C-alpha cells in the first residue's frame, strides 16, 4: 500500500513539475507571473461516479466513502486544484477500485466489459489484455494509452496471472492499478507539442470541455474530435460545444455547477430539531436540494431563461415530500412545476427551503447565517468568522418574553459595537427572510409578534423578500458574481488581476446576451483562453468580485 501511495504521490508531483515549467517567470506589465502551469484537479465524487459509468456502464456500482472535497473561495471545483490524496483517502480509493474491478470481471458483466479471454490463438491472453487495457485506458485516462503503457500493462497482467492464479486475476489487478492511478483520479493537463507555450493538447481540451459542460469525462464523439485535432479549430470546437449543450447531459453539468455554487451538498449533513420542525426530515432535505437544482435547470436550461429571474421566479419544482413545508397541495406523484400566485411570499431562490434550512440553526433561524451566505455566495463578498469570545446568550434565548422576535434579539446583541460592525452587513439581508422558519416554512408572526422584514440592500430600503429579490434581479453585482463564479468553476482557480480583462469581457457578453446562463457557458467553452495553462502571480493578488472589507458573522 505504501508503495502504491508513494508512486501516486510521485505521479501527481510529476503532473505538476514534470514539465519543467514551475519556477520560470514572465511579466505582462503587472505583477510577475509564473510560466504556464498545467492544472491538476482531483475528480470529485460525482465526477468519479460519472467516469465509472462512462467507462463501464451504469450497472457497475461505486460503493465507498470518498475523501471530502475542499472548498476554496466557496467552490469545490477550485478546491479540487488544491487537494491531494491522503493515505487514508487512498485506501478508500483502493477499496472502491477493487470492488469495481470485481464487478467488471464478474460473470454478469465480464462478457460485455472484457469481451475476450486467453485461447489457442492467444495462449497467455496478451492480445486480450492489450485490447481491454486500450479500451479501458481511453475511458479512464481520457486519452489513449501509449504503446509502452499498453505493453507494461500486458506484462503486468501476464505476471499477475502467474502469481494470482489466472488471467482474470492478473487483468483485474491491472484494472485496480488503473483506477488508483493519478491519470484517472486527477485531471492533469498535458501541454501541446506544438503551438503556443501555454497551449494544452487536444485530449486535455476535451477533458476540460467535458467536465465543464457535463461534469463527466469525454464521450466517444468528443474523444474522436480530440483524436482528429478538430478541437483545435474554431469550427470543430463549436461543433462539439453545440452538440454537448444540446445534449440532455448538459443539464447535469449545470446542476453540478449550481450544486457547488450554492453548496447544496451540505444539505446531506443537515439535521433539525424534530420537535421544533417536525415536517423536516432527511427525505425533505434531499428533496429540497433537488428542488433547487430542478428549479434552476427549468429556468436556465429548459427555458433558456435569464439568470436574474431566479430571484423573482414563482415557478418552483415541487414534489409531495415538500408539500408540507411549503403548505401547498402537490398533485403529481413525481416532480412537477408549481407556480405560486402573485402576492405569495414564495418568490425566487432565496425563499426555497434548501437555502433557508441550510443557513439556519437546528432549532431556530439565523439571519446572520442567511445574510452571510447571501453575501458570500451570491454577491461574492467576504465575511470573516466571528471572534471566539462572542456572547450569544441573548440571540439564542428564543423564548425571551421581552425580546420576542429574532430581530429584537439581534438588535440587543448588536449593542456590542464590535459585533455590530459585522452584523450590519449580514443581518439586514437575513432579517428580510425571517418570515421563513428554520425549516423553510412560512410564518407571519414569531411569538405572536408580527415579523418585520424590512432591510436595506446597497443603501436601498426594501420590505420583504419579494422586494429584495427584485433588487437582486436588478443588481449588476449579482450577475457579476455569477460570472466570476462560473469562471472560477471552469478554470479551477481563483481570479487573479491578470484575469480581470477576461472577466470584463465575459460580464459584457453575459449582459448583452440577456444574462442567459447557457450562453455564458457557451462563451467560456468557446473561448481559446479556457484551454490555456494559467500563468499565476508569483505574489498573491487574488481579486474578489466585489472587494469589500472583511466582516464577521455567525449568530
Amino acid at each position, binding site marked *: 500500500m505504501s508503495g502504491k501511495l508513494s508512486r501516486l504521490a510521485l505521479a501527481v508531483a510529476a503532473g505538476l513539475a514534470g514539465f519543467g515549467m514551475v519556477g520560470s517567470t514572465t511579466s505582462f506589465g503587472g505583477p510577475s507571473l509564473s510560466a504556464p502551469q498545467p492544472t491538476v484537479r482531483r475528480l470529485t465524487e460525482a465526477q468519479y461516479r460519472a467516469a465509472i459509468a462512462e467507462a463501464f456502464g451504469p450497472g457497475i456500482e461505486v460503493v465507498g466513502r470518498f475523501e471530502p472535497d475542499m472548498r476554496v473561495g466557496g467552490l469545490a471545483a477550485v478546491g479540487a486544484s488544491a487537494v491531494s490524496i491522503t493515505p487514508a483517502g487512498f485506501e478508500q480509493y483502493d477499496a472502491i477500485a477493487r470492488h469495481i474491478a470485481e464487478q467488471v470481471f464478474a460473470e454478469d458483466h465480464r462478457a460485455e466489459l472484457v469481451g475476450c479471454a486467453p485461447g489457442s490463438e492467444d495462449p497467455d491472453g496478451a492480445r486480450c489484455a492489450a485490447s481491454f487495457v486500450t479500451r479501458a485506458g481511453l475511458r479512464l485516462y481520457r486519452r489513449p494509452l501509449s504503446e509502452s503503457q499498453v505493453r507494461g500493462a500486458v506484462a503486468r497482467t501476464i505476471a499477475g496471472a502467474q502469481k494470482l492464479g489466472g488471467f482474470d486475476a492478473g487483468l483485474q489487478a491491472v484494472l485496480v492499478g488503473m483506477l488508483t492511478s493519478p491519470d484517472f483520479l486527477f485531471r492533469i493537463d498535458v501541454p501541446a507539442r506544438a503551438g503556443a507555450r501555454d497551449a494544452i493538447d487536444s485530449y486535455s481540451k476535451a477533458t476540460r470541455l467535458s467536465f465543464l459542460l457535463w461534469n463527466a469525462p469525454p464521450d466517444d464523439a468528443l474523444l474522436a474530435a480530440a483524436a482528429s485535432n478538430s478541437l483545435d479549430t474554431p469550427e470543430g470546437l463549436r461543433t462539439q460545444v453545440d452538440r454537448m449543450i444540446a445534449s440532455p447531459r448538459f443539464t447535469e453539468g449545470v446542476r453540478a455547477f449550481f450544486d457547488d455554487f450554492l453548496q447544496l451538498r451540505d444539505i446531506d449533513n443537515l439535521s433539525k430539531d424534530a420537535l421544533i420542525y417536525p415536517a423536516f426530515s432527511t427525505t425533505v432535505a434531499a428533496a429540497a436540494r433537488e428542488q433547487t437544482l430542478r428549479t434552476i435547470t427549468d429556468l436556465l436550461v429548459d427555458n433558456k431563461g435569464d439568470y436574474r429571474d431566479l430571484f423573482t421566479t414563482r415557478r418552483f419544482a415541487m414534489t409531495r415530500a415538500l408539500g408540507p413545508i411549503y403548505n401547498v397541495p402537490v398533485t403529481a406523484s413525481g416532480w412537477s412545476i408549481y407556480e405560486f*400566485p402573485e402576492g405569495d411570499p414564495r418568490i425566487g431562490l432565496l425563499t426555497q427551503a434548501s437555502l433557508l434550512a441550510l443557513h439556519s440553526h437546528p432549532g431556530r433561524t439565523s439571519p446572520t447565517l442567511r445574510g452571510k451566505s447571501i453575501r458570500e455566495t451570491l454577491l461574492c463578498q467576504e465575511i470573516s468568522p466571528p471572534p471566539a469570545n462572542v456572547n450569544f446568550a441573548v440571540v439564542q434565548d428564543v423564548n425571551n418574553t421581552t425580546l420576542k422576535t429574532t430581530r429584537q434579539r439581534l438588535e440587543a446583541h448588536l449593542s456590542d459595537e464590535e459585533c455590530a460592525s459585522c452584523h450590519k452587513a449580514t443581518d439586514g439581508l437575513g432579517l428580510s427572510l425571517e418570515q421563513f422558519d428554520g425549516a423553510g416554512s412560512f410564518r407571519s408572526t414569531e411569538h405572536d409578534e408580527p415579523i418585520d422584514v424590512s432591510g436595506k440592500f446597497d443603501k436601498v430600503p426594501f420590505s420583504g423578500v419579494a422586494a429584495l429579490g427584485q433588487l437582486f434581479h436588478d443588481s449588476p453585482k449579482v450577475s457579476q458574481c455569477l460570472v466570476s463564479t462560473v469562471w472560477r468553476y471552469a478554470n479551477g482557480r481563483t481570479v487573479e488581476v491578470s484575469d480581470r480583462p477576461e472577466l470584463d469581457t465575459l460580464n459584457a457578453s453575459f449582459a448583452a446576451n440577456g444574462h442567459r446562463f447557457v450562453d455564458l457557458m457557451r462563451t467560456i467553452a468557446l473561448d481559446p483562453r479556457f484551454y490555456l495553462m494559467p500563468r499565476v502571480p508569483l505574489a498573491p493578488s487574488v481579486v474578489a468580485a466585489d472587494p469589500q472589507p472583511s466582516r464577521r458573522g455567525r449568530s
Partner: protein
Amino acid sequence: MLAERNMIKKLAAALACGAATFATTVALQAANAPTGGVPGTRAFVLNGLYIGGGGDPKGCQAQSPGNFDVYLAMLPPDKRAELSPPGKRGELQKQMWKHFGFRRMRLWPGDFGGRAETAKLPNDVQLHVKPTPEQIRAIAELNGFPKDRGSLAYMDQTIAYSSCTNPYDFPELAKGYVPYEGKFSTGMNLDGKAGSQSFTSPDGEKGVDNQLWRAVGCYKQQQEMNDPALQEKVMLSARSPTLIEVSGIDDPHNDPDVTVRVLTGADPLVRDGAGKPLARASFSLDPDPTLVNVMHGRIVDGVLTTDPADIRFVFREQIIDNLRVVRGAVIRASFRPDGGLDGGLYGYTTLTSYYDMVEHMTQDGADNVGVSCVGIRQAIDRFADGYRDRATGKFTAISSEMRFLAVPAFVVGAAASAGAQSQGTMR
C-alpha cells in the same frame, strides 16, 4: 413511559385483529396558509377514528370476557389451572378450537394462513383467484366442513368456520357478556327523542343515542381505545386514511352554508419527525366513486355541524379491509387553533358493515385480543336501534359515536372538489 408503550402495543394488536373498534383518518381539503390551498376550503386527514362513548364509571358491572375467559370457565378446575398461565395460550387455543370444532385451511400453498393446512380444491378453482360463493361451498364440502359452513377469511387467503364466521353457532361463547348500563355517555341525540335507552351526555344533553357503546363498551380493549390522549399517538388505517374537506367557507367562525365531503385517501398517512401525523401532506383519492360522500353543513362559533347523510368509508389496517356504512351520519367538530379538527361522526352504523370488520379480525385475532365475536354479534343485534327492515321488522343499524382527531391536509387529483382551484398552479 413503558406502560404507555405497552398500551400502544396492545392497542395496535387489538386493531390488527379488528377489535371492536375502528379508526380512520379524515381529511378536509386545502390548508389555511397564504401559500397553498383552495380559498375557502380546508381539508383534514384523520389519524384516529375510534368508537366513543361512556363516561359513567359504574357503567360496567364487570368487563366482558373474551373467548379464552369463557372457555376456561367451562373447564374443570384442574384443567383450568393447567391452561390458565399465559405460557399455555397456544395449548389453550388448540383445545378450544378442537372443542368447538373451528376450522381454518389455507386456500393456496404459501405463507398465508399461518400454520393452517392447505385445502383440497375442486378443479374449477384457479390458484390465487378469489372463489365464487358456489366454489366456496364446494371447497368446504370437499374438505369436510360442516354442511353449509365455511367462509373466506384472513384477506381471502383462508376458508374458515368459527365463532367469528358463524357467531350464532356458538352461543356458549357469549356467556358472561356485559353491556354498558351507565346513565351517561358521550354521543348525539340522533332521533330527537329521549327514550329509555337514551343516555345523558356529560354536559347534560338528554336523549343521547349511542347503543354501540352500550353493546361493546365493557370490553377492555374498547375502553382502552376510547382515550383521546392515546389516540393522538396512534395512526390507524393509515394506508387508506379518511379525509374531511370543508369548502365554501366564507367565515371560518360562522358560516351557515358549507359543503363537507368525507373521502378516502389513496396515499398513506405518515408520521412527522416528532412521531405525530404529518400535517399538510397531499392525498389523492381512492378511485371508487362511492367513497365520495357529500354533506351540507354550517359553522357556528367555530363548530362545524352537518346535516344527516348516509356515508361510506373504509378502514384498512393489517388484515382488515372493511367498508363502513353509517346512515344518517352527522359530523360535529371544532376547528383547533393549530389548524386541526377535533370532533365526532355520529349516526347509525349498519350492523352488516360493523360486523364485517369484527369478522375480518378472524377467530385467531378475537382470541388473542380478548373479545368474543359471539358476544359482539348478539349485542349489536340486540341493541340495534335504527333503520328497521320493513320485511323482517328488525333494525339494521345501531346508533354510534366515532371520535376523531385530524390534522390539516390537501386533497388533490381529479376527484378533488369540483371547480376547486388551488391558488398555486401545478404544471
